[in-house]
């Protein structure tokens, strides 16, 4: 890729350092993050990205938007997630990137992996940990962290793997464990951790994909894994929903897990994240909405036809703004449907691929035909 002309890497480093400090200083209830502050950060972030991220700068120029037009986070021009597949979106040179996350490989029958280049793992970490501290482990109870796969060891390029590894390293009692085996989950190790937790009365924080928990539920239901009452303060965090196992109902998984592990529904946290966003939202119980997040992660709901903002409560296309994306693009237009609920969002679903029109050749068939070459 071409090397963009940037105002100097110092500009990114400087702003990034300020944001790290602000993220680390934040906890829910601290009034330092009012709307004015966020907008002030957003103006600086937009200028940096407009000038330093060449492709994004051109995209904004084509829409007649420059730094002078952005007075707050809502004004930042959003890039569709597809852009992460088309080009490398990064502020400054790609050489400055120290971390790369791969997006999922398919969209509407097309196989095309995108990637999110992360200039500052420290900024990502600061956002991730601030959110996790606030929304998953708000208490000070000594908790052991247990993660189901993936971890980066098994799945290089997985933003979820990076997240789980970082949480294990940065939280809890310092002896966290990933229960991974070459074939998937190391069930005997997971079962041993559960038994040990019950015996020692030391709570667990177990993190994994919804699909991973569904596999565990299968074992709990037929007795291959022990049903227990986990100690007070234990938490499950699932993410991903039915991705990877079509037809899976999160509700079934969550209710089954709390039944077999002796937990209350509000001890189950649902994490909502995307490779294209470096901050996360969280919801509690079942259904897990609203999904709330740190104050530097905001969302709007847009009319899919006009991209006009819809009033709170109306279902439309979700458009996120995330200051932790300082090194790429903060404003991201998704293909997800959702709505604003109070201080958070409700994720309604992914927009399914457009069905073929009439007797014209369908998308998948055209693309398949190209594959016959």
């Amino acid at each position, binding site marked *: 890729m071409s090397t963009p002309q940037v105002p100097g890497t110092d500009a990114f480093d400087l702003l990034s350092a300020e944001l790290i400090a602000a993220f680390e200083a934040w906890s829910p209830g601290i009034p330092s993050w009012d709307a004015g502050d966020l907008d002030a950060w957003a103006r600086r972030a937009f200028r940096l990205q407009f000038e330093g991220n060449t492709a994004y700068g051109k995209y904004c120029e084509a829409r007649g938007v420059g730094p002078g037009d952005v007075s707050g986070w809502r004004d930042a021009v959003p890039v569709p997630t597809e852009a992460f597949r088309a080009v490398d979106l990064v502020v400054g040179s790609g050489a400055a990137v120290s971390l790369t996350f791969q997006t999922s490989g398919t969209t509407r029958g097309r196989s095309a992996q995108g990637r999110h280049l992360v200039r500052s793992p420290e900024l990502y970490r600061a956002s991730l940990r601030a959110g996790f501290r606030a929304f998953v482990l708000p208490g000070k109870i000594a908790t052991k962290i247990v993660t189901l796969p993936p971890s980066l060891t098994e799945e290089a390029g997985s933003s979820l793997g990076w997240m789980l590894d970082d949480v294990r390293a940065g939280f809890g009692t310092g002896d966290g464990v990933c229960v991974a085996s070459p074939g998937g989950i190391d069930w005997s190790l997971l079962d041993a951790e559960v038994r040990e937790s019950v015996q020692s009365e030391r709570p667990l924080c177990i993190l994994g994909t919804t699909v991973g928990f569904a596999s565990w539920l299968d074992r709990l239901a037929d007795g291959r894994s022990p049903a227990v009452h986990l100690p007070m303060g234990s938490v499950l965090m699932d993410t991903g929903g039915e991705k990877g196992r079509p037809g899976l109902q999160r509700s079934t998984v969550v209710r089954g897990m709390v039944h077999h592990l002796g937990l209350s529904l509000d001890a189950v946290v649902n994490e909502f994240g995307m490779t294209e966003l470096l901050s996360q939202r969280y919801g509690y119980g079942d259904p897990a909405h609203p999904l709330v997040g740190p104050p530097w992660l905001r969302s709007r709901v847009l009319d899919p036809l006009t991209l006009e903002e819809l009033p709170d409560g109306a279902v439309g296309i979700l458009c996120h703004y995330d200051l932790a994306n300082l090194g790429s693009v903060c404003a991201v237009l998704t293909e997800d449907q959702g709505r604003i609920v109070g201080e958070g969002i409700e994720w309604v679903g992914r927009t399914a691929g457009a069905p073929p029109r009439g007797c014209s050749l369908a998308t998948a068939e055209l693309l398949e035909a190209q*594959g016959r070459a």
Partner: protein
Amino acid sequence: MPPPSFWRRRAVLEAWHLPGLGESVAEWLEGRTRAGAEFRAPALSAAQAGAVAQSVRRAALEARSNRTTGEVVGSIAAAASKLSGGGAEGVATRELLRAELGWDERLVRDTLEGMARTWTADSLKGLVDVELGGSAVLDGFVADTTWTGPGHRSRRALGSPVVLQVLAGNVPGVAITATIRALLVRSGVLCKLPESEPGLLPLFARLLAEEDPLLGRCVAATWWSGDSFPAAWREWAKWAGRAVVYGGDEMVEAVRASLPADTDLVSYGPKTGVAVVLPEASAGAARELARDICAYDQQGCVSPRLVYVVGESTRPFVEALASALAEHTRRHPPPDPTLAEAVAIRSARTACEFAGYEDGRSLVEAPGESLAWTILASESPAATAESLPRVVWVHHVPNLETVEDTLRTLEGRIQTLGYCGAEGLQKLAALATRLSVSRIAPFGSMAWPPADWRHEGKHQLLPLVNWTDFEIPE
């Protein structure tokens, strides 16, 4: 005459025409078109489906004895002219299509008029003449003058008494066209209607019944959800000697698997239109192509999606096409795309726009954030396209050889190859035959094939007939 009553209270469309059903409908199936029009059809039991099939068969056989093909042509043409005419029936038809498809009045009228041109008595008679040498061979045995054996031989052509039709998500009118072809070869029709446009064939069948009640009883049509094959289908399949399917590969395979082994199958798969701008094309070429793109809301298998500009840069043609699409859209605004289409159009625009920022060889022309039309232009040859409304991919190619190389991946999948300009036209025609293109047509008529075109390169009537040879010794 008042318009046929096909609306119920609450404006629910009656998507069925089932002679022989009787009075008792115990249960109704309800559906909704893409544009939101609600419709319903009876949930047929196997016994009811069987009664309908037998009724259609009886009527078809009776019509063979009591009606000449010329009379059938006359009744079809009379009913079809009412659909597109200025009378009450035409008004009702246009109202129906607007509701089903969400199209504006002009697009509906243009589409209907275009289709109706192929349903006139002259067009239908011409089709029978071209493919079967006249209608006499459908009405009785005709001496075979090529016979060189002893004595005499005569021949008669007739379709199966009953033909099954499955129409998966087709453009409006295809169900009627398919039904007319079957009626011309003196078959009765059992039709599963498309969810996207389930109302037009039942309306046509009612008009046909008004012209000739016997012919009206030769057509049965109804709808059920999805690609399933309920008990009613299995019953129908028992009575049909031939099935005609419009649908994708999966649909065709599913139908084939659901039929008795000896049922003949004629299938029409999804295809696409490709347009080639030859050097020194006329100034009006872009305007003509815009018309082809917007016809049928770009749902047709003949609708252009891929455009190749031979020679210099695409830029001048893209600008002219953008201007033409803007003008066409101003006069004929398209229906809103679905949510999924909206997301897909934005995604395609994004991919093209950002690729352009990277290599400077791609660009998007569109009316701002509006999704009314989109041109995705690239200076690199490729056969990349998606099936999205009023979206075309325009690629630059240095010469026709590159067009052929690029399109080889779509061999057998191109329904119409449109052209403008004369330089290299014969070469274009030669490469089209190598790619198994079924029609080469100038811009402006891509979307409007004539009545006797070889649909998918096949005859329209010949695949539907069985021949009987009658040999008489000296």
